[in-house]
Structure formats: structure tokens, C-alpha cells
């Protein structure tokens, strides 16, 4: 399925904004994403499987809060990073 990558994580995807990854849940999708782009998962998901504070993940436009969300191949996953800071 289609996964949209925010700017700060595109160093992992050879600067590609849109990539493909598979999984029956968001957890599986992120594991697949990490297989394809090693290291990317830990920058947005912590060791307790929580989405990091400044990361938001949307599935078909709806924000999700956990990793057990079911997915289908037609879904679109949008990863967003907060723009706050200085």
C-alpha cells in the first residue's frame, strides 16, 4: 500500500515522498517499512511501541493512536511530523 513519508525521514527512502510497504496491521506495515528502509521505524516509534510525541500517523485521513489498526492493500498511510520547534 501507499505510504507517505515526511521530509525529515526521507533520508531513509532515498528522498522519496511516496513508498510502498505491506502489512495486515499498522504494526506489520511499520515492520515491513523498516525492512525496506532500515532504522526508519525507531525514529518514529519508541521501544515500547508508542508513536513518538511529535509524530502523527493517519490512515485514509484518520489519525490513529496505536499500532494494531487493521489495514488493507487499498489503504493510504500518511506519516506526519510536527513542525514546531526552534
Amino acid at each position, binding site marked *: 500500500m501507499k505510504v507517505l513519508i515526511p521530509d*525529515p*525521514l526521507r533520508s531513509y527512502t532515498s528522498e522519496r515522498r511516496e513508498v510502498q510497504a505491506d502489512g495486515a496491521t499498522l504494526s506489520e506495515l511499520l515492520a515491513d517499512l523498516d525492512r525496506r528502509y*532500515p*532504522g526508519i521505524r*525507531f*525514529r*518514529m*516509534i*519508541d*521501544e*515500547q*511501541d*508508542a508513536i*513518538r*510525541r*511529535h*509524530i502523527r500517523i493517519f490512515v485514509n485521513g484518520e489519525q490513529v493512536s496505536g499500532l494494531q489498526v487493521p489495514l488493507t492493500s487499498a489503504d493510504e498511510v500518511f506519516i506526519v*511530523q*510536527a513542525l514546531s*520547534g526552534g
Partner: protein
Amino acid sequence: MATISKQKSAMRTAATDKLALLVATRKGAFILKADGSRRKWETTGPMFFGHVVHHMMLDPRDGRTMLVAARTGHLGPTVFRSTDFGANWKEAAQPPAFPKVPEGKKGRVVDHTFWLTPGHSSEPNVWYAGTSPQGLFRTEDGGDTWGPVAGFNDHPMYTKWTGGEQDGTPDGPKLHSVIVDPSDANHLYIGMSSGGVFESVDKGADWKPLNAGCRADFFPDPHPEYGHDPHCVKLHPLAPHILYQQNHCGIYRMDRSAGSWERIGTNMPKEIGDIGFPIVLHPRDPATVWVFPMDGTSVWPRTSPGGKPASYVTRDSGQTWQRQDQGLPASQGWFTVKRQAMTGDAHDPVGLYFGTTGGDVWASRNEGAKWTCIARHLPEIYAVETAALA
């Protein structure tokens, strides 16, 4: 003593190498390379531009492996590795992270890796890392995969020793000053802000507080067993029974045969005090130590006392201190020098270096007698380390 003389000689030989400074900043990393005389410096970088880089270290055992502890304001923490002195970098496959706990329990999360220490000379690919919140991690493959040192992270006293979030620095509680005794790979020290100084004699399997004699003025009982705030702890490489620390509550020295810390900062001028972040040891003379005092009065401005920055040196183990301010601003110089941001080289005379939170790097080729600014306008500096270039 013959052994120390031989080691001193070896260290001077190494000092003929060219020198670089590894500068970690809030917005990336920089390398400052010196000419042979240490008079001219060239700044290269930034590397990892935009990353918060807490520490960058060269492995002195091979002279080419470097590790960088980095995160960004929004992305999680990681470690980058280079095996060719920074020409190419690769991210660690498994950065320092606490173990996942069962569903429904609250687990610890590494906010950032704060400190990197190469392991013992007999353990070539071993490094240690200290994190925020307090965690100790170890790699045996040169920094690619890291595992927790469970003997500390899961010690039954961990929660009591480390306190809570409220006991940390404004940037979070930190485990720092990871020291490997050069005479014994099993003998480790750590410092924690907060927590105090701790020691392990079995390669991290068990730990004991090492704070006797050190004050913790912020507690009702100023002499607790733990809970202190060492800002920076150093062990002398040629006299590993001698430790120094710049603490939140003064400058201390310990001779392990005495068994407790002695406050040597009381001999500093009263108007300056003995509060600061870094402490630097002479590579060959265990009696010579430098500090960079800061204002620790009232609400703790953490800037140079009176806006007049200076290093102070003792050459008699802290009995007397001499001010060193030649070349530094005579007034309106409100420097803050963080705990990892001052260091020395192995040359003779020793070169000293510090970076400020204002982004300037200062150097002295003569053990602090005169200071020169060698880089300006860098981002906020977190750490400065020397690296001998082969």
C-alpha cells in the same frame, strides 16, 4: 613509577600527531582540524545538519572509528558510525533502547543518548553509552548493535538511585561520565545527574554508590548515600586510583586509598566559587586539573561569574588555584560551558579547548596561559573532544 614514566613517554609520542576537535552542537556536528603547530584551525561541517548531537567520539584504539549520538527535535534517538574518520557514516542497526515491557506496564524510553565511551584497550569493539533518562548500554561490535547493561538498568535500587524526572537536569536526567579503568576492564564508574557516582567491579553486573564525603546541599540531609549531582567525573589514566569531579556542590578529588571525596574547591577564590560543569585532567600529571567556573548563586545563571570568563588550574591536587583569563573577554562575557564541552590534548605543553553555548570554540596551546577563539558562530555547543589524526 617506571611504568608511568614509560606511559608518559608513549603519550608524548602520540602528541606529535595532528589534532582535530570533534564539536557536537544542537544543530549538527563539526570537525576543526589543526595544523601541526595548533595555531591554525579549519572548520568543516556541519555533519548531521539539524540533528541534536550530544557527543561525537573517536575510538583511540584504532584512530578511525567514530560514533555520534544524535536525535532531532522530533525524531527518536540513534547512533551513527564511521570507520573512516567521518568520510562515510552508517546508522546503528540497533541503537540504545530499553527492553519492551509487557502490555499494560509502563516501560522506559530512551529520549537521547548523551554520552559515549570507548571500552578498554583489551576489548577493541566495546563501547559504552549513557542515556537520558539514566540508562547504561554496551556494544560489542563497534556501535552497530547496543544492548542494555541490565546489572545497572534493572538493579533493584535503580529507581531509588536515579530518583524521578524531577531530579534531572532541565534537559532530562542523564547518565554520563562512563569511565573504564585502564588497568581493569571489569572496573567501571558512572556519574548520574541526578544519582551520584557509582562503581562496578564486575563489568556492570552489580553497582555500588561512591559518594562518601561529597555534599548534596539540596537535600535535607546533605550527606546522603546517593542522589548527588556530579556534573563531570574523570579518572587519571596513569593513576587510576585518583578521581576528580566537578559537582553541583563543588570540586572534589578522591584517592581511592582514602575512600572518600575531599572537597578541593573550597580553596577557590570565594567570589568565584567552585561550581561549574566540566573538569579536565592533565594527561601526565595527576595533580594538575582545570575547571571552568560558572555562577551557581541564586537561580543558577550558569554563566561565567561576573561576566568575566576564566579557567582555573591547580597544579597541587587542589590546594591552590590560579586564574587563567588572558585572551578571554575582560567583561560582558557570559559564557556557559557544558560538562562535555571542555577537553585537553596529549601535547606538551597541553592544549586546552572549550566550546560555549554561544557557539564559540576557544583554544590554548599553553595549558591555559593564553586563550584564542578558533571558531565563532557555531550552534549551541554540547561537547568538544580531541582526536589525534594519524
